[in-house]
C-alpha cells in the first residue's frame, strides 16, 4: 500500500481501494434531500430499532420539535427543526400586477399592530443529519487502536469490541458526530447499517423514510441525482437550494453522506467549511522526513567533519 498525499486530503476516486481493498463494491452513501423532509423522525426510530440503541432521555428541549438535540452516541440520525422567516418571493398579487404601487409613506407606532401586517413568509426547515462517512475521515485517521476502519463500501465503522474509549476520534471529527456513550465510554456512530449492506439491504433510515428525503445508493449516482434536483428547484424559483458535502474538493474530500439544504449550513448546525484535522498529515510527514534527513545529514556531517580534520 502506498500512502499518497491524496490519502489525507483532496479528491480520492477509489476510497476503498486506497484503504487496501483490491476488489470491492461501489462506494455507497446517503443523499438527504431536506426539501422533501417532513420531520417525521421515522429515520431516528428505525435507526434505533435496527441498531438496538439506548434512548436518549425524555427531555423537552424547547427547540421547536427537536427533542433529540444533536447526533450522539445514542442517536445516529437527528432531525433538526428550524423556524425562520422565509426569503421573500414574489407574491401572487405582485406576479399579476405589472404596475408597482409605491403608495404614500405612512407611520405606525411601534407595537401598534399584532405583527401580522408586517409579517413576511414563514418557513419551517427540517433536516435529518447523520455521520458524513467522509472521504478523509478524521476519526479514522486518529484512531490508535484500529477500531475505526474503512469498509469495502467506502463507509467508516467503529468496531465496539476493539474501541478502548480513548476519545481521540471525538476531537478528530470536523462535524462533531462521533461521541462516547456515558457509562460505557466507547465511541459510537452511524455504521450506515454495515450489517444490512452486507446482506444487500439498504440502511434502516432510508428504508423507513416515507418521502424519500433520505436516499441511499452508489455515491456517483446520488451526486448526479442531487445536481439534477438542485437544477429543478432553481428552475422553480427555489434559488436558495444548494448541496452540502458533495464536493470532492472540500476539506474532507467530499462526504459519503451529503445534503441538499435550503439555507446556509450554519442554520442547520452544520460547519460551513469542515476540514479534516489530518489534512496536513502528509506534508507534515514529508516535512518531518526532510527534517529527519537534515538531522541525519547533520549528524553524519559531524562525524565526517570530525574525521576530515
Amino acid at each position, binding site marked *: 500500500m502506498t500512502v499518497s498525499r491524496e490519502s489525507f486530503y483532496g479528491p480520492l476516486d477509489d476510497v476503498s481501494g486506497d484503504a487496501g481493498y483490491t476488489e470491492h463494491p461501489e462506494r455507497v452513501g446517503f443523499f438527504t434531500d431536506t426539501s*422533501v423532509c*417532513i*420531520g*417525521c*423522525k*421515522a429515520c*431516528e*426510530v428505525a435507526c*434505533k*430499532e435496527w441498531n438496538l440503541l439506548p*434512548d*436518549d*432521555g*425524555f*427531555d*423537552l428541549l*424547547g427547540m*421547536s*420539535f427537536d*427533542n*433529540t438535540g444533536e447526533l450522539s452516541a445514542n442517536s445516529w440520525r437527528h432531525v433538526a427543526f428550524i*423556524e425562520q422567516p422565509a426569503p421573500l418571493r414574489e*407574491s*401572487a*398579487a405582485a406576479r399579476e400586477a405589472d404596475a408597482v404601487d409605491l403608495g404614500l409613506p405612512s407611520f405606525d407606532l411601534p407595537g401598534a399592530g*399584532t*405583527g*401580522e401586517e408586517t*409579517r413576511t413568509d*414563514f*418557513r*419551517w*426547515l*427540517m433536516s435529518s443529519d447523520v455521520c458524513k462517512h467522509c472521504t478523509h475521515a478524521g476519526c479514522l485517521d486518529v484512531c490508535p487502536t484500529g477500531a475505526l476502519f474503512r469498509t469495502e463500501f467506502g463507509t467508516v465503522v467503529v468496531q465496539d469490541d476493539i474501541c478502548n474509549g480513548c476519545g481521540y476520534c471525538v476531537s478528530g471529527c470536523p462535524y462533531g458526530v462521533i461521541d462516547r456513550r456515558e457509562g460505557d465510554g466507547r465511541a459510537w456512530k452511524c455504521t450506515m447499517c454495515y450489517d444490512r449492506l452486507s446482506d444487500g439491504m439498504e440502511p434502516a433510515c432510508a428504508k423507513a423514510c*416515507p*418521502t*424519500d428525503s433520505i436516499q441511499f445508493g452508489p455515491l456517483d449516482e446520488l451526486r448526479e441525482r442531487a445536481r439534477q434536483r438542485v437544477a429543478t428547484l432553481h428552475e422553480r424559483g427555489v434559488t436558495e437550494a444548494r448541496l452540502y458535502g458533495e464536493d470532492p474538493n472540500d476539506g474532507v474530500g467530499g462526504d459519503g453522506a451529503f445534503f441538499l439544504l435550503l439555507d446556509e449550513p450554519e442554520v442547520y448546525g452544520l460547519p460551513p467549511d469542515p476540514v479534516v484535522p489530518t489534512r496536513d498529515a502528509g506534508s507534515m510527514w514529508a516535512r518531518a522526513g526532510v527534517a529527519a534527513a537534515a538531522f541525519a545529514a547533520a549528524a553524519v556531517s559531524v562525524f565526517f567533519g570530525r574525521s576530515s580534520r
Partner: protein
Amino acid sequence: MGSNMAEAHPVGFQWVMEAKARGARVLHIDPRFTRTSALADKHVPLRAGSDIAFLGGVINHILSNDLDFREYVQAYTNAPFLVSEEFADTEDLDGLFSGYDPETGTYDTSTWQYENGLPEHSAEGDRHREQSAGEQHGSGGPKLESGTGIATDETLRHPRCVFQILKRHFSRYTPEMVERICGVSREDFLDVCRAWTSASGREHTAALVYSVGWTQHSMGAQYIRAGAIIQLLLGNIGRPGGGVLALRGHASIQGSTDIPTLYNLLPGYLPMPDARHAGKQDYVESIRGTHQKGYWHNADDYIVSLLKEYWGEAATAENDYCFGHLPRIDGDHGTYRTVMDMIDGKVFGYFLLGQNPAVGSAHGRLQRLGMANLDWLVVRDLTMIESAEFWRNAPEIETGEIAAERCRTEVFFFPAASHVEKEGTFTQTQRMLQWRDRAVEPRGDQRSELWFIYHLGRLLQRKVAGSTDDRDRPLQDLAWDYRTEGDGEFPEPSADDVLRRINGADLTTGELLDSYLQLRSDGTTAAGCWIYSGVYAGGVNRARNRTARTEQDETALEWGWAWPANRRVLYNRASADPQGRPWSERKKLVWWDAGRGEWTGHDVPDFPKNTPPGFEPEYGEAGPGALAGDDPFIMQADGKAWLFAPSGVVDGPLPTHYEPHESPMPNLLYGQQGSPARKVYARGDNPSNPAPPESGGEVFPFVFTAARLTEHHTAGGMSRQLAYLSELQPALFVEVSPQLAAERGLANLDWAHVVTSRAAVDARVMVTERMRPLRLDGRVVHQVWMPYHWGPSGKVDGDIVNDLLGVVLDPNTLIQESKVATCDIRPGRRPRGRELLEYLAEYRRRAGVTVETGTHVMTADTTASETAAPETTEPETTGRDTTAAPDTTDREEDA
C-alpha cells in the same frame, strides 16, 4: 383543509410529495403552521371553526365569476332540478332554513324536497338526530320516492333551480366577509380561489384532502358538504386526480364503518332497524323509494343476504329471514349518551376494545366518572392503558371524586395481540382492503379480537342453549360456525374464513360470489357485507393481491381490493363527458366503447356496463335500469350529485356558516349564532363556555384547538409505552404566538395552564411563530394549540388535554366538536386537589356559566320566539341497559 397530513398520515403524504415533484401546487389551509404547511407551496392560516365561511367564499367566487365546469354541472349534478315552492333559505330566515322546530331544535325536511319528486315525509327531525341519521348514508344517498320525472331547468335560470338557490345562498360570502370571519387576507383568499378554479375543466383536476379537522365540529358533515360542492362545481369528482379524500383517523377506521362498530348501522351502510319497523318489508321501504334510481333500490337483496349470513338455515322466508332477531334502536345510543347513562346509573357493563376513552375521548373526566360507576368493565389492549387503571391513577383521585377503595367497577384486562401477531384485513381511506399475514406468534395470553369475540359468542351460545326464553333466540339461532385453526379448547378462528363469509356465497351451489350484483332477496345468497362482495371473487383472496406498482399501470388494480367491485375512483362514469368520451386525453379514465357496446377504461367502470351514454329511462322506472346514460352517481336516488341535499342531511340542505358552540365571535352573517340543530346536553357535569349573544365569554378569550403529533399515537397507548417514541416528544406542551406569550407573561419551556369551564390542564409553553394572531372584524384573536397524547400512565406522562372539552355534537353523525372551543391560559401550574375544583368553580362564576349556558341554540330573529329546549337529563331509576354498544369510529381517540 382540516388535515395535517404530513404529521398524521406521513406515509400517505409521500404521494402528495410525488405530485408536488410532478408540478402540482399544494395549498394548506389550517389554523396553524404544521409540518404539512412546511412542505406546502402555500399556507393560509384561518380561525379554527370558520372553514364554511371560507369555503362559502370560494363557492361564491366560482358562481359570481362563472368559473364552474358548466357542462359537468349541468349534466351530472342536481343544479337544474327545481326545489319546492315551500322551501325558504337562510337568506330569508336570518340563518335558519324552513322547517325548523325551536322546541326540539330540529328540522322537518319536507319543504326541502324537489318540486315534483313525491314528498318524503320527514317530520321526524328529532328522531333523525337522535339516531344520527345523516351518518346512515355512508355508501350512497338517502331515499327519494322517485328518481325520474323531477322538474328541471336546463338553462339553470329558474329562480327555484338548485343552481340559483346556491347562488343566492352563498352571495353574502364575499372576500370581505371571509377576511372578517376567518382572518384570511383578501389576497391570500383570492390566491386560493385562483389556484383552485384553475385546476378544473377538461384538462385539469384538483384533489381535496380533509381529516378529523373537518369532521369534529358541531356542523362537521356540512364542512364536508361545502368542500364537495366546490369539487362538483369544478368537475373534480369521479375523475383522475380529483375527489374528496377523507383521511381516516386510524388503521382500518374505514373498515369499522363499512362493517360498523356503530349503534345505528349494519354492515354495508344498511341502517339499523328502528323500533317502528313492523317487519323487513317495512324496513326496506324506509331505505329506498319505490321508484328511485340506482343500486340502493336493491336494498332487499342486501339485507336478506346479511340475515342469511347471520342466521343461516334458521333464516327462512316464513320467518322474515329472522329480521325480528335484529336489535331495534329507539333513540340516541351513541358513545356520549352511553357515558352519561353510565354516570346516571343506567349502564352496568362496558367493553373497550382498542379504545382509551379516559384520555382519547372528548371530556375525559365524564368518561372516567362514567367508567367508575359500572359493575364491570372489560378492557382489551396492548398495555395497561388509563381506561384500565383510572380507578387508581385518574386525576379525580387527587380531587377525591374517585377513590380506589370505593370505586365499584370491576375491571377485567385482556392482553391483545397486535396487528403483526394476527392475520386479517385493514380497510383504509381509499376503501381498499389489504390483507396482513401474521408475522410473529402472539406472546403469552395475547389473543386476537377475532379469537376473543368468537369464543365469547360460542360460550354465550352454550350458556343459553337450553333456554326457552324468546329473548335468547337470536343467539341460539346464530350461525356461529367459522372454521378454526389449531386444536385445544380455544383454537384460533380463521380470518380467511371470515373474509369468505363477508364476501358471500350462492347457497344453492356453495360457490363464492363474484359481485354484489349476484345477491338475491329470495334466501339463495348470503353475504356478510354486500359492498365487500367480490373481495373473494373467483375463489381468490383479492385483498392479498400484491403486484408491485412498477409491474402494472398507475390505476394499480392488482394491489389489494377496493370496494365496490375493485373500483379505484368512485363515480368514474363522470370521467367521461355526457356522450361517453373522455373529457380529455390527459384526464382519461373510463369511456364508452360504442363498438363493443360497453363501458371500458383503465379503472373498473362504476356504471351499468351496457347502459349507453344517451340512454333515457321511462318515467316511473326504478333501480339500476332507471339510471340514464348520464347519471354517474349510481348510488344516488336520482343518479345525480347533490349540490343541494333535498333529504338525508338533518341540519340543512346547504352548508351555512355558524359559529362553533364556543366562540369569541358573533356570527357576522346571520342572527343565528351556532348550528341550530347541534346536539347539546344540558348537564351540570357538561358545562359550556359562554358564546355570543351570551355574556361572560371574555373570561375564555382564546380559541382552543387540539390535534396530533407524528411521534405519538392518539391516546398514547401505543406510543407512551415505547422509549423510542416517548423521547421524541417527551412532554405535553401548548403552542402560543410570541404576541400571546407577551400578553400573558408566558416564557418558552416554562409551565402554564389552560383553563375551560370543564378543566385546567398543565403544559410546558412553546412560543412559536407558527401560531399567528388573527385580525378578525377589527379585533385580534389568539389561538392556542395543544397535542392530546398524554395521560397518567406510560414512560412519559402529562395532563389529559381532552378534559378541557365538553360534549356538543354534530346532529348528522353525533361526532363531538373537539377541534374548537374557547379557553384561557395562565402562567404557572394549575392548583391541585380540592383547590382545583374551587378554581374551576370560580372561573365558571366569573363567566356566569350555568347548566343552561350554550343550550339555547336558536338565536335567529324570526317570527318564532321560543328557543329550543335542550335535552335535560334527570337521573332515572328504571331500565338499565345490559351492555353498552359504543361506536368506535373516528370520534374515539381523536378528540
